């Protein structure tokens, strides 16, 4: 038994919380970049690209993140790369987030009203110009609330990186618990910390959604 919860334990948990945020940022940025490519590939004019990206999304969305993490951890090792838990977790989360963000963003791009596409075509803009100047600026507006909402999922899911030995919030909680044996108190602290990180994002996403809803109904009556 290692005594009682003291300031050192809390500092250690705080450090873990910082790594949770760090890993979430890595997953969001990496997954965002790959996910953007996936979203565009899903609506590509080339059928083979569409099919390949659809298969990717189906495979990732049909597999638990935990298994993807194990695959990343042992897979990178199997091809002879020495992997740190950070690299394995970062790579796996990137692939996972990309599949979900890719699908969310594809929906947003496709929900830009059809006449906008046609008008852009009528103005003789090239496909790239149509995308960059007409469709994407509108799609980004539509995509903001669900993307903020998905960030909550990303933060929660980084807790699974603890399983491949990455010392984020969850893992640091397990380590502290190994010396204190007060699982209920420690996991309650962990839960509250996750809640404190996620709930503001949830509220923000809901507010954005309500504002968007109002904006859209204004459009409809205009």
């Amino acid at each position, binding site marked *: 038994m290692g005594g009682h919860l003291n300031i050192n334990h809390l500092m250690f948990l705080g450090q873990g919380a910082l790594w949770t945020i760090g890993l979430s940022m890595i997953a969001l940025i990496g997954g965002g970049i790959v996910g953007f490519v996936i979203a565009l590939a899903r609506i590509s004019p080339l059928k083979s690209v569409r099919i390949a990206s659809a298969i990717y999304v189906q495979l990732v969305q049909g597999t638990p993140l935990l298994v993807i993490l194990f695959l990343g951890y042992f897979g990178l090792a*199997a091809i002879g790369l020495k992997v740190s838990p950070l690299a394995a977790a970062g790579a796996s989360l990137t692939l996972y987030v990309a599949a979900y963000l890719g699908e969310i963003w594809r929906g947003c791009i496709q929900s830009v009203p059809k006449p906008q596409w046609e008008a852009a075509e009528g103005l003789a803009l090239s496909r790239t110009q149509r995308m960059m100047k007409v469709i994407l600026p509108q799609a980004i507006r539509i995509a903001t609330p669900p993307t903020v909402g998905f960030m909550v999922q990303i933060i929660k899911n980084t807790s699974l990186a603890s399983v491949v030995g990455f010392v984020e919030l969850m893992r640091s909680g397990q380590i502290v618990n190994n010396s204190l044996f007060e699982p*209920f108190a420690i996991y309650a602290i962990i839960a509250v910390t996750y809640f404190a990180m996620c709930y503001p994002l949830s509220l923000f996403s809901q507010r954005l959604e309500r504002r968007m809803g109002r904006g859209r109904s204004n459009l409809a009556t205009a």
Partner: protein
Amino acid sequence: MSLQLDFPAVLERWPSFLAGAALTLELAFFATVLGALLGTLAAVGRGTHNALIAGTCKVYVETIRNTPLLVQIFLVYFGLASLGLKYSAFSVAVAALTINVGAYTAEIMRAGFEAIPRGQIEAAEGLALSRLQIYWHIILLPAIEKVYPALTSQFVLLMLASSVCSQISAEELTAVANYIQSDTYRAFETYIIVAVLYVILSLVMRAGFWGLGLVLFPRRRRLGTPL
């Protein structure tokens, strides 16, 4: 960099894989049924005029939706143990997954309830239907029909999330994989096989829900709206 895969060495453990997959489906089934009930109750509770009930349901939904499943499972597992209650890993897993999916189901059902036009309830009242009849025929069933796709996606996600139960040694598919890889030293092959099994399970579940939807909502099929 050389990659040598030896699948036969792992595949000879197929009875264990099958047993794990069966337990995963079993976990998912119990948690889906119980979670659907809990979620519907929570959604109804959030809509009541009783501030205490509505508040409790809101706190439940928001707490669960903003904390990781892994933390919830550990809390239930160690929480019950510290109260001196001993349950099997399977029952704890079912309980934790039910509590988890119940919160998501509640949000989906609430969206369904909100999508029921007020006029239809008034019309039913005008036709002198009882409160129970109105709740069942005018509110609950049409709401489920509206959110059926979102609801079933949530249950497939639940099946995938049940992999986290391997961490409290409920012997579902991922836990089986952990044993096999530590036994055979063939981690990459093992997890590739497990990933394929999960993809198959989720395809089977999707197909099952799609078929069930055709049976439950024949009107939808007639109208030709995609499920």
